[in-house]
């Protein structure tokens, strides 16, 4: 009985984390999937969201800035705003860059942001990070607080999914894919390409900020290492590419699938002897990378391919369930 209860708790934890990664992946999908913006700095926006929410919701502390003790909801909203504001600044400068350059610039930016988090002890408590971040529903009895958190994450993913599906079908989303496919044509059709790309970048970053805030509240602790390119940016990219770029369902499925594999293999590696455990952890990254290469070469569309919208929906090609 105790074992089943343990498995139940683990499943809840697994799904909650998967849901949080789904939020991050949906954010990247707006930037990369919809609009074709290569953001290699997912970790940066994740960290902005996580730190903003953590600083606003923790109890007063002399170790770091903030400590206002606000409710978690306010922290999450602020996380989205902060992430969007920084994304606006970044986009104003970098959005015109060609895809590779944008990737280099965003990677560099995330790295600098990590340096700030690590070095500015007075504001962020440096490498020791921020602990005792309040978790929503903490006061509920043991399994229910976890379940409630899962339901909250679930609800957020569902709302985001609904909104993004609508946005993708709306004229806004169509212009975005037009920009991705043929920028010159979109420009010739009179679209303000730069402005629209900035919009997509900001929107995606705000969603990533929300994901960061959720993570901070869920784990109750945050440090600069969580903004490492491996743990955040790489995983989220793998999730999106494997699930299927430009497909919101693909983004969610990819996140849950990759996270499940990532997390369950961790159980195996931690049971190994200490010297092997560390090596196995790195081997795990290698194997996930290999899976990414396989998908890129064999199934470049991912599990769920992008659904091409037509101006007039032909009755035969629309299979059941393509409309949610």
């Amino acid at each position, binding site marked *: 009985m105790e074992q089943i209860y343990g498995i139940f708790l683990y499943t809840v934890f697994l799904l909650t984390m998967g849901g949080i990664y789904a939020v991050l992946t949906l954010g990247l999908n707006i930037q990369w999937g919809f609009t*074709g913006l*290569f953001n*290699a700095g997912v970790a940066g926006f994740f960290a902005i969201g996580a730190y903003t929410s953590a600083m606003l919701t923790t109890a007063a502390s002399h170790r770091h800035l903030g400590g206002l003790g606000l409710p978690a909801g306010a922290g999450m909203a602020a996380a989205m705003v902060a992430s969007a504001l920084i994304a606006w600044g970044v986009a104003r*400068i*970098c959005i015109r*860059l*060609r*895809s*590779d*350059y944008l*990737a*280099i*610039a965003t*990677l*560099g*930016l995330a*790295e*600098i942001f990590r*340096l700030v988090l*690590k*070095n500015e002890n007075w504001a962020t408590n440096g490498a020791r990070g921020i602990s005792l971040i309040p978790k929503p529903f903490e006061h509920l009895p043991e399994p229910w607080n976890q379940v409630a958190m899962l339901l909250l994450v679930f609800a957020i993913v569902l709302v985001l999914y609904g909104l993004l599906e609508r946005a993708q079908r709306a004229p806004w989303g169509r212009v975005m894919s037009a920009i991705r496919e043929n920028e010159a044509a979109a420009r010739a059709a009179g679209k303000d390409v730069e402005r629209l790309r900035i919009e997509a970048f900001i929107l995606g970053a705000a969603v990533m900020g929300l994901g960061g805030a959720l993570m901070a509240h869920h784990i109750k602790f945050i440090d600069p290492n969580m903004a490492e*390119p*491996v743990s955040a940016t*790489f995983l989220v*990219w*793998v999730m999106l*590419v494997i699930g299927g770029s430009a497909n919101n369902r693909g983004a969610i499925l990819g996140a849950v699938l990759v996270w499940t594999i990532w997390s369950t293999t961790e159980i195996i590696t931690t049971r190994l002897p200490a010297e092997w455990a*560390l*090596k196995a952890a*790195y*081997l*795990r*990254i*290698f194997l996930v*990378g*290999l899976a*990414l*290469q396989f998908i*890129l*070469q064999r199934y*470049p569309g991912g599990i769920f391919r992008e659904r091409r919208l037509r101006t007039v929906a032909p009755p035969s090609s629309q299979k059941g369930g393509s409309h949610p």
Partner: protein
Amino acid sequence: MEFVNFHLIPGLVLGSIYALGAIGVTLTFGILRFANFAHGETMTLGAYLTLTLVLLAGWHPLLFLPVAMALTALFVLGMDRVFFRPLRRAPTIILVISSFGLMLMVRSLVQVVWGVKLQSFSKGIALPWVFFDSLRVFPKHVVIAAAALALMLGVHVLLRHTRTGKAMRAMSDSPELARLTGIDTERVIRATWIVGAGLAAAAGIFLAYDTHVETLMGFKMLLPVFAAALLGGIGRPYGAMAGGLVIGVVEELSTYAWIGSEPLLPPGYKAGVAFAIMVAMLIWRPSGLFRGRVF
């Protein structure tokens, strides 16, 4: 004299290391047309291969330079064959994602094989030569600068006076035209990887010889090396050399106490200097100082 000893000379040494790395980036960018994120890990690999050879044979690390360069080039050729070549016709950005994945794959491979502990080629502290009672020069710095210069001269001879080098330049200028004139593009691509990987390995070995071997050393060099390539203009090997020197020197000078007695920039932020230069270049002069290509 503190300025020369602790900022200018280390800056020039670091700059020549960056220059070697940047040549590879700019050649790959010019000929294969994508930013190779795995280039930093190529440098790490070169350093670790040398470490193994040093531990096995116990000779001076720089004696293994040619062997380690060749081994690294072989590894990268294999990487190209398995991962990049099937994507040759895919959109550029797919190659960038692939190289981003490879960056982490190679790093984790190094971590699995060699572990994550900080290691170094030789134990003990070398004393500097002292000139005029105040100018201090470390022998290793002289060796690194001389070896880097020799390698750069080699690149110059290769690009100017050999058929392969001329084909590489032609393909960098216009791949279609190069193909029409009967240049074997796959051969040129192989040559590019060999040169780029060899120089990257050398850069990694020099940095390791100057400081130590660690698994993140290549990633830390990636941004300065990209910045150097952009500063020099993409596809311009000479520009990359100059860009590398500039980035290295500016990085070291940024921590000098120009005003008062505090460093101008806290040393923790040194990595930000290259990035700032790069973004400024991308915005105001994307063709680089030497009129490179803008893709």
